[in-house]
């Protein structure tokens, strides 16, 4: 059955509606991207220590046990454009439970992506 995976409500409510929009993906591609996301989440449920362990430093201790797992459309070649940010729950009673905090574009694009998301929220787009 694997390990438990919990997602922050904002992943579905805020991250998903804009996932792939800035990258110019069409409706079908965005649906395929969501399917790929679900597949990657299933992988995390089977093996929680996937992707890159985030490097925490002074002042950013919150990044301890956090991982960044890149993903993209399965047929697409090149560097993956999106990532899943998750944390392996450090509490004793939740061994290897993964907490999915965010889904979005990789690297420095996240700032622009977040601004777009904020605009979208402010304008209350459908």
């Amino acid at each position: 059955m694997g390990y438990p995976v919990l997602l922050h409500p904002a992943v579905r409510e805020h991250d998903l509606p804009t996932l792939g929009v800035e990258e110019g993906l069409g409706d079908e591609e965005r649906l395929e991207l969501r399917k790929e996301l679900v597949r990657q989440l299933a992988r995390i449920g089977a093996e929680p220590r996937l992707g890159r362990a985030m490097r925490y430093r002074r002042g950013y201790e919150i990044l301890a046990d956090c991982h960044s797992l890149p993903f993209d459309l399965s047929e697409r070649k090149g560097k993956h454009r999106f990532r899943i940010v998750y944390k392996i729950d450090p509490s004793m009673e939740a061994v290897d439970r993964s907490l999915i905090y965010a889904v979005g574009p990789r690297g420095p694009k996240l700032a622009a992506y977040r601004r777009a998301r904020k605009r979208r929220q402010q304008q209350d787009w459908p």
Partner: protein
Amino acid sequence: MGRSGKKTSTTLRPKRSLSSSDAREQLPSLVKDACAVTTPAKSLATHAVEIGPYNRGGAWLVPAADAQAAIERQESLLEQVAELEELIEDLTAASVIAARSRTPPEKWETLDGFAAELGLVDVLEEARAELQ
């Protein structure tokens, strides 16, 4: 007068420029000079010889030591950019994680519930079956 915001680009050119026919005649000595360079210069243009019709350039003859050093510089820069991208990604993610970690546990949703909301239960089940 203030400076205009428009950037000006400078084209770096080697000091030495030869026509194609001159370069053909001098090729043995040009190669000999290039082979003699063992300490790479900071710029590819330093030891390069520009070759082209009517001394207008178009091709550069560069010592292997300089070319190799340029490749290594590029690889090093790409690694640094990747590290910086990761750093920015991590620091940006830290603020998102900090904000979202305030949500009480009972509001988080399970993967099964998430897939069901998206109408992708079949995809989840298929992925799980493949992973077993």
